[in-house]
């Protein structure tokens, strides 16, 4: 049985969703278009509103403004039990007084299916998540990873219009997390279902998603593929949230069409692409884009070595350029060579790898 043959997976559309909790505005007008069959991730720090958005989609909260559509249907105020957007809770929310079978069968029994049909579907779901033979166990007799699988099976078996995952890996240890991550991806591909995934872990988001929405204090900062988000961040927040990166405040001192010269400390970087209005900017450079040997079309900055950190498969050189610290990351020991703290060092950066963004107002 293939799930998407049986049920119709829908597009999910959020339009200007606003949510207030007392005086605080948790969501300040969220608009998102989630495509059919896509694994869509909402990524952001805690308190950014991602879980609230997910609970609104699940029907466990109602927005104070805006609309929610499944396909063409306005489902903004449809109660959770009629919505068909099934949530896998962060803590799995398995019922401890029911066996694995009863947990998974719960939603089917509500649909008044025949016993035979229920048994077949539960069997199918447990097979899908590789827990066949665990029917009679109780949740407390399962490991964290197994509990997670049961929670997913319980959600999938009712053939949801969209599957919602709230930080599904946060309660697992590091090794299991990687395993479950690819497991979720496998199931999603196999069934071709629409999945909305919430996490605060940018690495997890990049590895698993078709598209990511980066959220911050109740707004969506950027939506795009993992590559777009990582390589072309559109805001300072997105740039700094997506992994370790150098974010250096600077001033535009010369403009020439789309190209500008910026200045920080006593350093001047010319020929950088920037179309923003503000002259207060940040210069964003990924550590792995910084070379310690001269390359073509590169700007160079000379400072002193502050620290050298050895991580095994890569090395980070932290340089001090006046008051500004920059991290360069290299996988080549040879490039680091005999560098030592307090010695002078030169960072080379290809102009194409430098992103100039307007500085965010605090």
């Amino acid at each position, binding site marked *: 049985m293939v799930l998407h043959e049986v049920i119709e997976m829908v597009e999910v559309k959020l339009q200007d969703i606003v949510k207030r909790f007392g005086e605080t505005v948790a969501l300040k007008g969220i608009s998102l278009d989630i495509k059919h069959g896509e694994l869509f991730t909402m990524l952001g720090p805690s308190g950014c509103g991602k879980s609230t958005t997910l609970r609104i989609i699940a029907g466990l909260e109602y927005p*104070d403004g805006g609309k929610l559509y499944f396909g063409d249907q306005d489902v903004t105020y449809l109660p959770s*039990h009629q919505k068909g957007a099934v949530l896998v809770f*962060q803590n799995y*929310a398995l019922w*401890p*007084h029911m066996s694995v079978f009863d947990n998974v069968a*719960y939603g089917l029994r*509500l649909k008044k299916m025949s016993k035979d049909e229920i048994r077949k579907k539960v069997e199918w779901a447990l097979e899908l998540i590789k827990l066949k033979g665990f029917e009679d166990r109780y949740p407390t007799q399962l490991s964290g990873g197994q509990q997670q699988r049961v929670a997913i099976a319980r959600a999938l078996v009712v053939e949801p219009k969209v599957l919602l995952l709230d930080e599904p890996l946060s309660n697992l240890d590091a090794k299991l997390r990687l395993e479950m991550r690819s497991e979720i991806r496998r199931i999603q591909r196999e069934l071709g279902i629409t999945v909305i995934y919430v996490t605060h872990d940018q690495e997890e988001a990049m590895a698993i998603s078709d598209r990511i929405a980066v959220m911050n204090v109740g707004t969506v900062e950027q939506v795009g593929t993992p590559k777009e988000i990582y390589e072309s961040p559109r805001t300072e927040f997105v740039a700094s949230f997506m992994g370790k990166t150098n974010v250096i405040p600077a001033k535009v001192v010369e403009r020439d069409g789309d190209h500008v010269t910026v200045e920080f400390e006593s350093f001047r970087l010319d020929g950088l692409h920037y179309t923003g209005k503000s002259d207060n900017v940040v210069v964003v450079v990924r550590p792995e884009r910084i070379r310690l040997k001269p390359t073509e079309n590169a700007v160079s900055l000379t400072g002193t070595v502050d620290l050298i950190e050895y991580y095994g498969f890569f090395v980070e050189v932290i340089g001090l350029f006046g008051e500004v610290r920059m991290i360069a990351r290299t996988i080549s020991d040879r490039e680091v060579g005999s560098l030592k703290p307090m010695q002078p060092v030169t960072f080379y950066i290809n102009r194409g790898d430098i992103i100039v963004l307007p500085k965010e107002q605090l």
Partner: protein
Amino acid sequence: MAVNKWVERFFGTPLPDGVVMTSFLFPLLYLLVFLVIPVLVMLLTAFVYNGHVSLYWFKSIFGSPYYFNPLHPSGFLVQLIPYGNQQIYLFSGWDFGVVINSILVSISVMILTTILGVSFAFVMARYDFPGKNIVRILLFVPLLVTPFVNVVVVQKMFLPNGLINWIFYQHLHLLPHPIWIEGLVGVIVAQSMTYYPIVYLNAYASFINIDPSLEEQAENLGSRGFHLFRTVTFPLALPGIAAGAALVGIFSLEDLAAPIVFQGSAIAKKLMSFQIYSSFVSGFAIGNPQMAALALVMLTIALIIFLTIRWYVGMKQYAMLSKGGRWKPRVAKPRPLQAAIIYLLVIPTLLITIFPQIGVILLAFSKRWYGTWPEGFTLSHMGSLLTQPDILRVIENSLLYSTVAIFIILLLSLTASYAAGRFKKARLAPILDSLATIPIAVPGIVIAMSYFFFFSTVPPFKGTALDPTNLLAFFPGAALILAYSIRRLPFAARSISAGIQQVHVSLEEAAINLGAGRWKALTSILIPMILLNLLGGAMLSFVYCMSETSVGITLGSINSTWYPITAKMKELITSAVGSANLAAALGVFLMLVQILAIVLANVITKQRYSFIGLT
């Protein structure tokens, strides 16, 4: 359908939801009709004099030295008086007037129970000594509630020829003269011995719940012994201890058993609870607005204690600040001096405090008890439990009333805990939460009196079976069931809301999200998960209903066909000599019911339940 702001504000759910609204409205209306309005109706009469709003009745209380005499107390605390051919110390107590007497008794009982409860709790929580398991079982004994008869035994213990003098005067020669305790001091001693387990249980739980690393850190920094206790342990346990002591203060204020037993010495009658009670039973004084005013004074004091402790405990929620996780409590072997204190002071004191319950059993199986010890073994009193029709009748009555009451209590506490615990943002949630706990602070005698006023004057109850003045049709059972359900609600609600708090809300949300309605989520997820708490709450309420005193001996004693057990017990101990033994037999019966309930609760729920000894 769109979000309804009004529904969201009052019920916490944006969309109108029948289950949630019923869960709010049923307990709210019930408490309004059977607690708030009756008390208000009674209290209003206290403000009316000659058809005008007036403070006359309050002035009549505070202007009369009988009720309020702070400056020139009469009586004595202790006096050496001749007794036969020797001299004895007679303890009686000063008389500052009814209102101040009640407050002083209450404060004294709080202090004594705190000393007893905290000492026992600290020893049990922190020391491991040979015989500890026996002490643990012994500490269970004073938790058993035996209305009136335990006070009868306390009275006998402190007579000139009683047990205390037998030990400390005759055999240990620690007293220069025998002692005789009666009057207000008698009430204080009896109440302290009855109520200290409440402080003990609270203090024990507090000591056990202190994160050991907090004490270890203090030791690590150089603190030890009493300094450690004074600076770290005691302050951390204080909110729990204070909560226990406050409960004791309220119970002391409303207690009727001790003043009734000690009423032989006139000063023991000069307590607020007894004054209101005696106006009630003397009949012609019912409806006296002065008593309504006195009831208001008593209720105000109880509410002040209650609200102060709620505010204080709410402010000091740090006892639970430590990160979760189980830890091994700090238990040490006592050093020689500590062992000496445990064996020579703490355990003997414990033995004395459990003697009333043992005495009740002795009384039930003996023919007479005039001297130090009872005499003449007999089974006739216990046999009467099974054969004497009026005794059988009261047992049947109490079982009937209590059983009906626990169903109402469970329904009330389930709906109230669910509504107030799950929909905290609702405006009605804090109101419901307060209303469901406030019966703790409403003295039973106040409820009895309120019901009398309310049911006899306010339609549609006037003239029905609830109207006590409707002599032919009045059915006390109905009034008792209502009173039980209000008075015992907080205890069951506490057990049940603790259960609901342990069930993460996501478990219900998951069910709703998978297609279950609210009702289905409630019946298939929440209720099965808190079944043990429901059972525990049911046992607790049942035991408390069976031993309820204040309403039982007032509204419940209007018609002897419908007496509950406690009304019969009160009748027996205040009537002819010798019938105290039969009352004690009923006390033994109540003890058996309690032991059975506790054992059942422990076996079924595999959790530790204990009862907190109240009447």
